[in-house]
């Protein structure tokens, strides 16, 4: 088995009624929950809850990916990105492909997206970006792939399925002065 083939360990703790994926408590939620949480983030401008949701995603997935890379001795950028793409799909977030990646920037394409397609299923199209979870994931993926810390990348959704495009495109950019050097 190639080192870039994702292997997630699912377990169910009967005593506590908890699912675990690679040792972390995992929970099933539907697109209604994700859409309403995203709507909440949109509405709560006082706190910039959009950024808050994106950062929660970044923090969560940075931990997941860095742990996975470390435990499975995955050191190559290409392997790390492939693992991230597979993780995104396996947990139901959609089909993500990294178009290009470098230490200072990159772009990803989402051919399918839980957040976007769930939003459309619930409310129809929107005119605003809504995939804060996806943007947070992409920041985490690049930071983890390049051995960088959280908040060293930011992500911008250039187009999205929820806004009527065929695919979503997210650009990721290094926001440190040093470019991580």
């Amino acid at each position, binding site marked *: 088995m190639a080192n870039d083939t994702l292997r997630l360990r699912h377990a169910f703790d009967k005593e506590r009624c908890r699912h675990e994926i690679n040792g*972390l408590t995992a929970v099933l939620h539907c697109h209604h929950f994700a859409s309403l949480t995203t709507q909440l983030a949109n509405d709560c401008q006082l706190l910039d809850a959009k950024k808050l949701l994106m950062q929660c995603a970044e923090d969560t997935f940075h931990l*997941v990916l860095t742990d996975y890379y470390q435990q499975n001795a995955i050191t190559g950028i290409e392997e790390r990105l492939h693992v991230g793409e597979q993780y995104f799909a396996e947990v139901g977030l959609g089909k993500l492909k990294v178009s290009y990646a470098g230490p200072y920037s990159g772009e990803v394409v989402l051919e399918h997206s839980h957040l976007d397609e769930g939003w459309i299923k619930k409310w129809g199209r929107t005119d605003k970006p809504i995939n804060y*979870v996806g943007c947070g994931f992409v920041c985490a993926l690049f930071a983890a792939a390049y051995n960088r810390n959280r908040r060293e990348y930011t992500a911008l959704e250039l187009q999205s399925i929820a806004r009527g495009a065929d695919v979503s495109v997210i650009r990721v950019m290094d926001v440190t002065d040093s470019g991580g050097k």
Partner: protein
Amino acid sequence: MAIDRERIINELSKLDVKGDHTGLINGFGVFIQQLPAMIWTMFSERLTRAVPEDLLETAEWLLVDAAHECGYHTGYGIITSEEWKAVVEPMIENAPEDILHGAFAVFSAWGWAKAVIQELVPGEKMVIRADDYYEADVVEYGQSGKMSAYTLTGVAAAFMDLAYGGNYDPTGVTGLNTFMGKQTKGIECGDEYGEIVVTRA
């Protein structure tokens, strides 16, 4: 009561849930994801800790509401699914009360909480006891002054909507929000277990 809770949990906790070739999980009439619970608890905790005191109640209501709608639609998908028909439906003798007990067994099998119905007044009131729930993980030492089981509260109310709120309405205009939940105990607050009281809205 004919509901074999342990059997339901055993059977339905084994469902193989993962994205298909599109990376989406289609099931129970909804798109599903299975993310680390910490993404949701982190968001709700950071949000409720950052809002001004006068907006806390609104923020908490919105978090509960997200779970309430989720529970209503996904709950309906669960109780009309093939898995439900195969495992739970043959156990149902007294509807809708047995359906509610079965639904909380599925609730536990899905990893939302180790929750059981402690008291049920048909059509009026339900009390849920949760001996474990992931939303309590926001406190690892000591006791919080703020209860945090927003998902548990919302989903419990949604299940009462489905049982006693009339026919399921996919638009959510009728049927949804005929009941409301209130958390009255929390593991995160030092209580032995979490408790949700659901009453007519």
